[in-house]
């Protein structure tokens, strides 16, 4: 494939994919989506970058070590179960609140969303660990992102 096409597509699509992944993760509680599919979608964004620009560039864009992402996700998910315990309810019970936002009937926020964010991070971290791991030692002469 013509690398110019590939590069252009990747440069345009990766941010879009990431954005979509976040939208999916956030909206998941009420309409199709969720942390799992969101995390996978985010991983495809980085996979696209890797196919276009090579492994080092994708790794650089990820910024954080994938295993750290997964670990952070686990911690976030664990932590999201703690607040209900302080109310004397079982671990991981949902707590919901409605933040007043002018012009709407409020923004729904809750600990299950935090939990889903944790799942998002775990899935992204693990998928990237697979992808970057298997691509180790790939051609490193591919042009950098900016070029």
């Amino acid at each position, binding site marked *: 494939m013509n690398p110019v096409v590939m590069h252009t597509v990747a440069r345009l699509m990766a941010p879009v994919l990431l954005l979509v992944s976040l939208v*999916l993760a956030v909206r*998941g*509680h*009420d*309409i*199709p*989506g*969720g*942390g*799992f*599919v969101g995390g*996978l*979608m985010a*991983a*495809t964004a980085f*996979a696209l970058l890797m*196919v276009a620009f090579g492994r080092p560039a994708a*790794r650089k864009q990820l910024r954080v*070590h*994938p*295993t750290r992402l*997964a*670990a952070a*996700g*686990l911690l976030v*998910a*664990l932590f999201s*179960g703690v607040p209900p315990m302080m109310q004397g309810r079982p*671990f*991981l*019970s*949902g707590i*919901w609140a409605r933040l007043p936002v002018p012009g709407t009937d409020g923004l*729904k926020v*809750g600990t*299950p*969303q935090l*939990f*889903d964010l*944790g*799942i998002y991070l*775990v*899935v992204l*971290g*693990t*998928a990237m*660990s*697979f*992808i*970057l*791991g*298997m*691509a*180790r*030692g*790939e051609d490193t002469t591919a042009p950098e992102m900016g070029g």
Partner: protein
Amino acid sequence: MACCLLVMALCIAFFVPFIAAALAVLITRLFKSWAGWVLALFPAGLAVWFGAQVPAGVQGEVPSLTLPWMPDLGIDFALRLDGLSLLMALLITGLGTLVVIYAGRYLVHHEVLGRFYGWLLLFMGGMLGIVLADNTLLLFVCWEVTTFSSFILIGFEHKEDAARESAQRALLITALGGQSLLVGLLLMGDEVGTLSISGTIATSDAVRDSPRYLAILLLVLGGAFTKSAQMPFHTWLPGAMTAPTPVSAYLHSATMVKAGVFLLARLSPVLGGTPPWETILTLVGTMTMVLGALLALGHTDLKLVLAYATVSVLGALVMLLGQGTAASIQAMVTFLTAHALYKGTLFLVAGSVDHETGTRDVAHLSGLRKRLPMTAAASAAASLSMMGLPPLFGFVGKELIYEACLEGPGGWPLAMGATVGFGGMVAAALRVGVQPFAGKTFRASKPESKVHEAPPAMWVGPALLGAAGLVLGLVPWAIQPLLAMASVDIGGSQAGGLKLTLWHGVTPALGLSVGSLVIGGGLFALRQPVLKGLRALNLSNHGPERFYQASLSGLLKLSSSMTRVLQNGSLHQYIVVTLATFGGLLALAVVLRLGEWPRGVSKYVLSHEVVVLVGILAAAVLAVVSRSALTSILALGALGLAEALLYVFFGAPDLAMTQIVVQTLTVILFALVFSRFPVHPHEHRFRWWTAALPLAVGGLITWIILHVASTPSHTRLADFYATQSVPAGKGLNIVNVILVDFRAFDTLGEATVLATSGLGVYLLFRTRSQRKKRQV
């Protein structure tokens, strides 16, 4: 109010070591070579506090608290500070203080001193927890904390093979014992209906009269004997000497190995006093005592000699508990204290000698008293106590033991056994505590001029401990109330009235004492032939040691043969094994549950669904028959996408979305794998079973799905999810609500598995190529 404060303080005391452990790395970084002194403030503060509780304790005050922890299971966070706990707590924190100070100098140049302190203090917390716990499960948790921290500390020099091997052995033996203990404690709890220790003791004969008594006893003994290195489980203790010396002094002589003895003492009001208890404890204890002393003489390494001598003492303590008379319990408590003092000293002395001369081999050491005067003085006091010479505390303890043996059911035969055991200990004390310091010539790996006294941090501990042995020998009444309290807690009120005196007059016990000195002196005088003889016999390579080696290598052989069969490196075989297992289990379930023919699904099929189905079939066939790997991958991808379409048709947008993204990633991963790993060209020889197995499994699954589809699916669970999603889960997307709310705990477990597998893959590839580079 004062009572409330006291209970709170007790609760805080429980957590102090854990807090100190968490801060250890930070403090070590901040205070560098002064870290030992700073960290010692934690145990020192605890020791002072526990010391301050003694007067109230003597008055009969027993602070205790019970907080619900897992109330449904009867597991409480219950602490209780009785006499026995107080004695042990004082030993743990007092010795702990000195060992922490000592380690600060001993390991001053160690690169991970902070981590060392963390584990050491964690151990201290576990040990303190064991003696304070008033709930068997809390005790068990703390018990395992000590097992684990001991494992880490034994293997602290993890770059050495010996350290790793010893750590593994200690963990295998003590953790297996821990499992046995857990079952024993649970059985006991089931029998009396409470997990509270004081509650169990209050039921007095309930456990002893139970038909399960013997099972409970044996299981508990399994825990106690492994922890306290009784025959035949003693083999891990000498190996544990690969730990840094402060650890040996603290864990493997003064505290952790006493946990087993403590447990037996704690439970003796519940389990003790029966024929099996008396027989097993007396026999095992005496055997351990005599053999330990004998094995001690077969070595010249200071720490090994001390380790086997410790085994011997632990045997003596168990034997005394087995006797169970008032006198023997009093002797046990007294000797336990005396031993902690002198053995702690001698280990620290051995560490100093090693540190200053570079060797621990007695054969190369002599005349050190001039070079290390303070260390030598401490060593002299401790070894005299170990030999049981007046006016040291060891003498007081030993006399009590002889008296207890003579008066108890064991009588003269037991007393003779004890005499022989102590004879061996006398010889060991002479070899370890006296020989390196006496005499004239000095030969060591370092030139003599460079050998000098250890720094203050390293002689303060041994000197104080040695001095304590001397002071308590001279004024034994100072510690008498505390020991009396502890005896009563073990043996009930009839074990009260302990009278400690240095001089008992000319009694049979004194005769036995002299006898053991004569035996010990003789063994020491004949040390060369004894050493040769024991080495020729090679005792430690028989019996339990051989059994351990055989079972370990058997286990490894078993697992490697299983690996050869199941993990032979052929992907083909993996798939066959997986499919066959899966299909076999499914078939079993089908035969058992779904015998009848499914009642057919009467649903019309739409034309576009047929198109997708045909596409799926075509893609599947293409993936199988294609000659090119890339074509197969793409065909599989197409199959997956077509499947996603089916999900869309049947109203499962979540599934469809996930399926699409998963397919995309899978194709990328496949492409990566095929571009990087050698792929054998497709074999096109048709083998009937490679086709039959997948077809059979696929058929089975079809069969099951038909069954599922033809059974009405209105279960209570589905209804619950459908009706409760909005009110209870506050979400319209039922799938997501199930995942993040109703069954969030499952999801958390799955996420953990996922993250772990990611870590595994990362490590696998890291090992393959860039082990040394830290970047991904």
